C-alpha cells in the first residue's frame, strides 16, 4: 500500500478547473517535491489535499480516504499544512502558536513536544513570549514548521517555503527539513519554484504544468535532467 496516494484528482474554483487528474504517490519517509512555475496549480493542489477546495478523485493517507472531508478533520487525521505565506498567528506569541498547533494533545504531551522543538530551534525558545509577527521571515517559517509538526502529523505539506526568503535562509529552511526528516522519519510533500534547493533536499520529484503532472522520478535523476535544468534551474 502506498503511504500517500493521490489518484485522478480534479479540482478548481467555481466553474474553472485548475487540476486535471493529478496522480501522485509518496512513500513513507520520503521528501517529495512538486516543481512548477507560477500558476501551474501547486497551491491549488495543496489546498485541495487539505480539504479547502472540493475535490473529485481520491486522496488516501495510509489507505484512508480523506478526499471530501472537512479541513479541520483532515488536519486531525494527520496531515499538517504550512500554507503559502507561512500562516503564523502574528498576534499570538511564539509559544501560543505552538500551543495552537498542538491543540489536540494532552497538556503534558504538549509541553514535552514544545520543549523538544525549542531544543531543535533554540531561537524559538529564546523568543517564546514574543509576538510571532515581530520575527523575521526565516524565523516565522521555522515557527510554522514547528507548529505544524507539534501535533505529530503523518504527513507534512509545505507550500513554497522559500517565498519571500533570502537564498541563504531558503537553504537553511530546506536544511532543517532534511534534518527533521532524518530524525523523525516524517514524510514531507513540498511544492516549490526554487528547483535547485528543493531537489537537493528531496528524494522524489514531480513536475507540474497547467494542472497536470508531466514528469516524475527520483530527485537525483531530475537534478541531472537537461530539460528540467533548462526549465526550472535557470
Amino acid at each position, binding site marked *: 500500500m502506498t503511504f500517500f496516494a493521490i489518484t485522478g484528482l480534479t479540482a478548481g474554483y467555481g466553474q474553472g478547473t485548475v487540476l486535471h487528474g493529478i496522480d501522485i504517490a509518496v512513500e513513507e519517509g520520503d521528501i517529495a517535491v512538486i516543481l512548477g512555475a507560477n500558476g501551474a496549480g501547486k497551491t491549488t493542489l495543496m489546498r485541495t489535499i*487539505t480539504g*479547502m477546495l472540493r475535490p473529485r478523485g481520491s486522496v488516501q493517507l495510509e489507505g484512508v480516504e480523506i478526499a471530501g472531508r472537512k*479541513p*479541520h478533520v483532515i*488536519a*486531525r487525521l494527520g496531515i*499538517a*499544512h504550512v*500554507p503559502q505565506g507561512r*500562516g*503564523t*498567528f*502574528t*498576534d*499570538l506569541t511564539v509559544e*501560543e502558536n505552538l*500551543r*495552537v*498547533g498542538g*491543540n*489536540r494533545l494532552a497538556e503534558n504531551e504538549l509541553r514535552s513536544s514544545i520543549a523538544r522543538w525549542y531544543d531543535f530551534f533554540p531561537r524559538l525558545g529564546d523568543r517564546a513570549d514574543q*509576538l510571532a*509577527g*515581530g*520575527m*523575521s*521571515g526565516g524565523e*516565522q517559517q521555522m515557527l510554522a514548521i514547528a*507548529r*505544524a509538526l507539534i*501535533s505529530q502529523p503523518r504527513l507534512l505539506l509545505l507550500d513554497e517555503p522559500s517565498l*519571500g526568503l533570502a537564498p541563504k535562509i531558503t537553504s537553511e529552511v530546506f536544511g532543517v527539513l532534511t534534518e527533521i526528516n532524518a530524525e523523525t522519519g516524517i514524510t514531507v510533500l513540498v511544492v516549490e519554484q526554487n528547483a535547485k534547493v528543493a531537489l537537493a533536499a528531496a528524494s522524489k520529484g514531480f513536475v507540474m504544468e497547467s494542472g497536470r503532472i508531466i514528469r516524475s522520478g527520483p530527485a537525483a535523476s531530475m537534478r541531472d535532467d537537461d530539460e528540467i535544468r533548462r526549465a526550472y534551474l535557470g
Partner: protein
Amino acid sequence: MQLLMQQMVDGIAWGSLYGALALTLVLVYRASGIINFAQAEFAMVGAFVAWQFHDWGAPILLAIGAAMVLSFFGGAAAELIFVRPLGRNASHFTLIIITLGLMLVFNNGAGWVWDFSTRSFPEIWSGPVLNIGPAVLSRQAFAIIAAAGIIAVILYVIFQRTRVGLAMRAAVGNPESATLSGIGVANLTTITWGMAAVIGTLVASLAAPQLFLQPNMLFTTLIYAFAAMILGGLNSPPGALVAGIIVGVVENLAGTYIPGIGNDFKQAIALVIIIGVLVVRPQGLFGKKEVARV
C-alpha cells in the same frame, strides 16, 4: 465639586453598561466579521425571559441565571441558522441586512409575546444608596459596574488561560491556519455568539430596573454601545469596556456642563464620538495596527 463627582460616578455606572453591551458586539465582530445589529435585541429578549421566570415565581437571581443559560443556546442558534449557512465568504451587506432583519423580528416578537407596555423589573441589590466620597451610587448601579468587572475578568481568563480561548484567538487572527491546525473554527464562532448573548442577557437584566422592561429598552443604549465599540477599536474586548466607560463619563459631563446639550440632546454625544473617531483615528483607541513583518 460634588456635582462633578456625582456625574463621574453616574457616567462610570452607565458607561459600564455601554461597555458591556459593546463587548458583546466586539465578540461577535471578531468571530464573524460583522456588526450584529440584533445584539441588543437578543439581550432585551433575554431580560424578558428572566422577567418571565421571575413572574412564574423564581427568585430574581435564579431567573436571570436561567435566562443566561437559555441565551447561550439562543445566540448560538441564531448564528447556526442565519449566519453559518451563508458561509465564510458571504457579503457583508447580506449579513448586515440579516442582522437588521433579526433586530426587527426580535423587537416585534418580544412585543407580540409580552406587549409593548413598560414593566418594572426587580433589582438584584436594593437598599439605600452607597456613599462614594461626596457622590452617591445606587446599589443596582454598583452591581452593574461589578458585573462589567467580573465579565472582564472571566473573559480575560478564558482568552488568556484556557485552550478554547487560545483557539478562539487563533481562529480570529487567522481562520485558515487555525483550521489547518485542526481547530473547528465554525463551531468556535457559534460558541462565541452564544457567549455574547449570555453577557447581553446579564447586562440587560441588570439595566432593566432603571430602563424599565419593554422591547425598545436598549435602543438608546445600543447607540452608545456602538460609540464605545468604535472608540475602543472594533476588535478589542478590553477596548470596548474602557471606551464604554469613557463614553458614559463624557456623555454625563457634556450633558451637565456644556450649555444647550442637557438631557434631551445627550444622544448626539454618541454620534459625535462615532464620527469623530472614524475621521481622526479609525482604528480607535485600542484597535490593532498590523504588526506583521513579511
